[in-house]
């Protein structure tokens, strides 16, 4: 049975697409799935360093499409997890070295071999984005709880619809509970209400993500971190499990009452 091609996209740059792709791919492979990560950000290769595989690259995606090498020879095997491979982007080529039709063909070939093909999309809505979504069966949209990121996500949702990708799933990244609590950041309900698509994950803003990236080891390897746990939850949801969402938003009335009371008691004591 053929696998599934999922594109990870956002519109706005720097919201966490590459980080998400690396972590979800690693997590799915840890669960025993055969996974291929495709870096579609031609000219701005990044997924290789986030995965810690930058020293192993010989061929890239454009070489494969141009027939310079066999697909098999361009795939880089992950050094820690079985069944996890990366097809790196070309670094010294232009985005238009590849057409959407060629990308679709590539994705169709890959999904014969893999359970999941995760495509890391470049930012923007131009050629690179159209390449990234060309072969996708479904999409994961990454946003942060900020006005410009949510606005761009909305635009992307519209463009995906035009491409017959009708039920993209939303990942809200870099939530800061302290800011949500004091009313200075939109919470999950706010974002969902505005974008009106299905939520599949909530990832807190977490320094451990940067530490992990520095080492080239996706944070999902450390399930004790909040972000690692959050990514792991998304992986399980992708696999069809019903996993409750982490409580990150502001507390309900009772919770606030309890906290205030306990604070008053402490002060008096």
């Amino acid at each position: 049975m053929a696998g599934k091609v999922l594109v990870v996209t956002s519109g706005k740059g720097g919201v966490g697409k590459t980080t998400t792709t690396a972590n979800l791919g690693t997590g799915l492979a840890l669960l025993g799935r055969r996974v291929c990560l495709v870096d579609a950000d031609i000219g701005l290769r990044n997924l290789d360093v986030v995965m810690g595989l930058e020293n192993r690259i010989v061929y890239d995606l454009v070489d494969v499409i141009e027939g310079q090498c066999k697909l098999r020879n361009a795939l880089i095997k992950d050094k820690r997890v079985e069944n996890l491979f990366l097809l790196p982007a070309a670094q010294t080529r232009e985005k238009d070295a590849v057409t959407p039709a060629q990308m679709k063909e590539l994705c169709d070939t890959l999904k014969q071999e893999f359970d999941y093909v995760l495509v890391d999309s470049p930012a923007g809505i131009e050629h690179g984005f159209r390449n990234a979504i060309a072969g996708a069966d479904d999409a994961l949209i990454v946003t942060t709880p900020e006005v410009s990121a949510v606005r761009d996500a909305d635009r992307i949702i519209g463009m995906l619809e035009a491409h017959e990708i009708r039920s993209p799933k939303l990942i809200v990244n870099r939530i800061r509970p302290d800011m949500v609590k004091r009313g200075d950041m939109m919470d999950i309900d706010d974002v969902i209400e505005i974008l009106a698509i299905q939520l599949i994950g909530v990832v807190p803003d977490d320094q451990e993500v940067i530490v992990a990236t520095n080492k080239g080891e996706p944070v999902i390897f450390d399930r004790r971190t909040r972000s690692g746990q959050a990514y792991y939850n998304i992986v399980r949801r992708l696999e069809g499990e019903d996993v409750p969402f982490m409580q990150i938003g502001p507390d309900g009335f009772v919770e606030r009452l309890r906290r205030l009371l306990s604070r008053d008691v402490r002060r008096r004591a």
Partner: protein
Amino acid sequence: MRDFFGRLFSREEGSKKAAKDRLRLVLVHDRTSLSPHLLDTLKEDLIQTISKYLEIDTEGLEVNIDQEEETMALVASIPIRSVRRGVVAKANS
């Protein structure tokens, strides 16, 4: 004590409300922005349809999308020259 109740009942006091309100507005616009070309086609169709009933001043015709808070409206201003006699007679019979 006032501080206590203030904190207990306060919600959406920070900048998040502004973020949400502004997003809602900008998205209403983003989602519906008809291209100038589509607006022209719409105008042509309107002229054709209305001309069956009324003689209109096609030069003075104006079609716009108006946006107020969260609601949108298609607003058309169509100057009428005269009602076509035959149409009125048919409608009344």
